[in-house]
């Protein structure tokens, strides 16, 4: 497979996953802003997903509709859903011959939807949940079309690498920001609604209720988002799939690079699998998360260096 093509497939997939995270986050944050209007702030969302300075965040953090427009349709915000979908579609366009026509058309339709100028007006005046749902649905269609039409092989594996690498990073970032509010203190208790919205924003609420019967506490939340293998957005789950998909690449890439990167992924996966909350609290949650993030970035860099570098 052409290096440029592998690169585009990898990023196409990362952008889609990133857009997905952003929209889920926006949706639940909007919902929670309707619950506790006085205390609610958009600061965590803007901290994770924008390049805004602290001062700019301070002026916008309590203006929900402005945040939604900034995060969804703003042309100048590089991380707006508009720009992310545009980049995903540009990547797809440049590798049209390496994805199925169904997948291309799905992304193309998504692009036309997000480009619609009426969207901004609707976000300002109408029910934002309806609009976010219509966009999130496009992501779901994308994953369905990907799974049911996309040919398996090298390209599919590179797409999945992008997908799970991005997902692991998003979950880490979320924890880092949400727990920074609590000064990374695992024993500190927070309001039930705080945890509930956190879980809902990554589609983890139902699983939590069924798994952790003792109620809401920081350790259980951390366990689900880092270690729970039944939770498709947990860091460990993502790492596991990253590893599996990388192994699929074995026949397609040269042996040296394969062993090197396979070692990196395996090491990180084991590091997480064979640690626990006691260990996390010993090294400090923030340090622990930063460490994982650095390892993920190193994996991304190695993929780039060995497979994508083409100019």
């Amino acid at each position, binding site marked *: 497979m052409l290096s440029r093509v592998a690169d585009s497939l990898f990023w196409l997939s990362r952008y889609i996953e990133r857009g997905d995270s952003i929209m889920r986050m926006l949706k639940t944050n909007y919902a929670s802003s309707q619950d506790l209007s006085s205390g609610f702030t958009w600061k965590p969302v803007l901290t994770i997903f924008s390049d805004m300075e602290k001062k700019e965040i301070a002026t916008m953090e309590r203006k929900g509709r402005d945040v939604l427009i900034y995060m969804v349709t703003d042309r100048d915000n590089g991380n707006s859903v508009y720009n992310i979908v545009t980049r995903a579609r540009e990547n797809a*366009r440049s590798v049209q011959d390496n994805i199925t026509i169904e997948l*291309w058309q799905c992304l193309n339709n998504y692009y036309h939807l997000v480009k619609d100028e009426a969207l901004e007006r609707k976000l300002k005046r109408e029910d934002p949940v309806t609009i976010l749902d219509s966009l999130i649905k496009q992501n779901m269609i994308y994953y369905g079309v990907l799974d049911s039409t996309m040919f398996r092989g090298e390209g599919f594996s590179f797409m999945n690498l992008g997908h799970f690498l991005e997902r692991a990073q998003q979950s880490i970032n979320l924890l880092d920001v949400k727990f920074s509010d609590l000064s990374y203190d695992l024993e500190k208790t927070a309001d039930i609604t705080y945890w509930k919205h956190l879980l809902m924003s990554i589609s983890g609420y139902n699983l939590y209720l069924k798994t952790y019967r003792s109620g809401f506490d920081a350790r259980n939340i951390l366990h689900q988002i880092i270690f729970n293998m039944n939770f498709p957005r947990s860091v460990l789950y993502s790492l596991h799939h990253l590893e599996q998909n990388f192994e699929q690449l074995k026949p397609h890439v040269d042996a040296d690079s394969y062993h090197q990167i396979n070692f990196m992924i395996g090491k990180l996966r084991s590091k997480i699998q064979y640690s626990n909350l006691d260990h996390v609290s010993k090294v400090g949650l923030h340090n622990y998360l930063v460490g994982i993030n650095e390892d993920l970035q190193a994996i991304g860099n190695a993929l780039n260096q060995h497979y994508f570098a083409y100019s």
Partner: protein
Amino acid sequence: MTSAELFKQYEVAEGTWDEMKALDDFRGHYQRVLEYLSHVSGDELNKKEELAKSLFMSQGVTFTVYSHGEGIEKIFPFDIIPRIITASEWSLIESGIRQRLKALNLFLSDIYSEQFIVKDGVIPVELIYSCPHYIREMHGLKVPHNVYIHIAGIDLIRDHDGTFYVLEDNLRTPSGVSYMLENREITKRIFPDLIPQNGVRPVMQYANLLHRNLVSLSPRPVADPQVVLLTPGMYNSAYFEHATLARLMGIEMVEGTDLVVDNHKVYMKTTRGLEQVDVIYKRVDDNFLDPLVFNPESTLGVSGIMSAYRKGNVTLVNAIGNGVADDKAIYLFVPDMIRYYLNEEPILKNVPTYRMENPDEREYALKNMSKLVIKKTNESGGYGMLIGNSASEDDIALFSREIVANPRQYIAQPIINLSSAPCFINGKIQPRRIDLRPFALCGPHGIDIVPGGLTRVALREGSLVVNSSQGGGSKDTWVLSD
């Protein structure tokens, strides 16, 4: 209003051959379509037009215009009423193109080796050497199976009496074939059952025929040669076509930066390292192909690719240097080529053409500018062209001065009327001028011409210019099986 009433109001311009209507009668080969449409209301036609547009949009059959940093997707205008060609008209077109391509291919092979046609005085030597597309690097080079023109688009028009003329040959990188394919798919959607009812011959085999030919051109005797399509990239207006063809053939679409030449071999950069490339279907103009040989500023090409080509380590499709055969001043001599190489009379006529280098013809042209079309010999796409009867005094004066200064760079032709065909425009069925570009594929086993082609339409009322850059659109083009 019903479609039947819309068609009743259809009026053909005087002195014009209309594809559907002769004097007061509709031609036989349009009857089935007229019958079908008589049950469709004008409203429904509007809806079909909308459906066609939304299908083009959602399938990404678009080109992108960038303004203010934002891409705007544009559709190449499509007219929903198909253009119909009878079996007998097609058989004439097919044999005419076949004959013409045989001669043009022999011409290229000759002109880049012994040049008998020049030595025998059929074509003046100065015409060859003054052509900017005559590529000296091609001289003495053997190309696989002696095929230079693998893909050709031959533009045909019809005069007032219905006679077909060749307007120009496109032998470098003819484009538009994806629209031939897409227009057909759209017609299947907007007019269900109409195509089988009419016995329309299929066109979808085009990509498979092309792929078979490309594979057979590999210089390495391997079972599964690496065939790629070289595109200038996403910002090219024909990018959709490149992607479509690559997909339909299952070949890799590459950009210049994906390729590298080492030791006179072309490689592509893959996740596994470098992989040798055998055949390149290039959609980059010759002039941008190799900065070491052609335009040194080009970033679209690949340094050293010409050396690999000359060593016979890679096959380029079409061959380099074909521009000498579709130069508009050389065009004049194609009928002579047919006589010279094949000892046959041309089946398809050329449009009468005046050479501006010839003093008598130049004098005639300068006196009769308002009755002529003036064309630059090395331009295409409707650029560098003057249509005498609708040009301003200033433009005529400008072209006259230019002709006197650079006679080699201009030809003159009488204004051919172009046939008209029914189009659905602003809720009415109206005649518009059309041409026809069938696509021919030449391979080691002979010439295939897919029954159909791209019918381009001058959508502006009264306009004779069908090029997309000048407000043209296209139609699905049917060749009937009987």
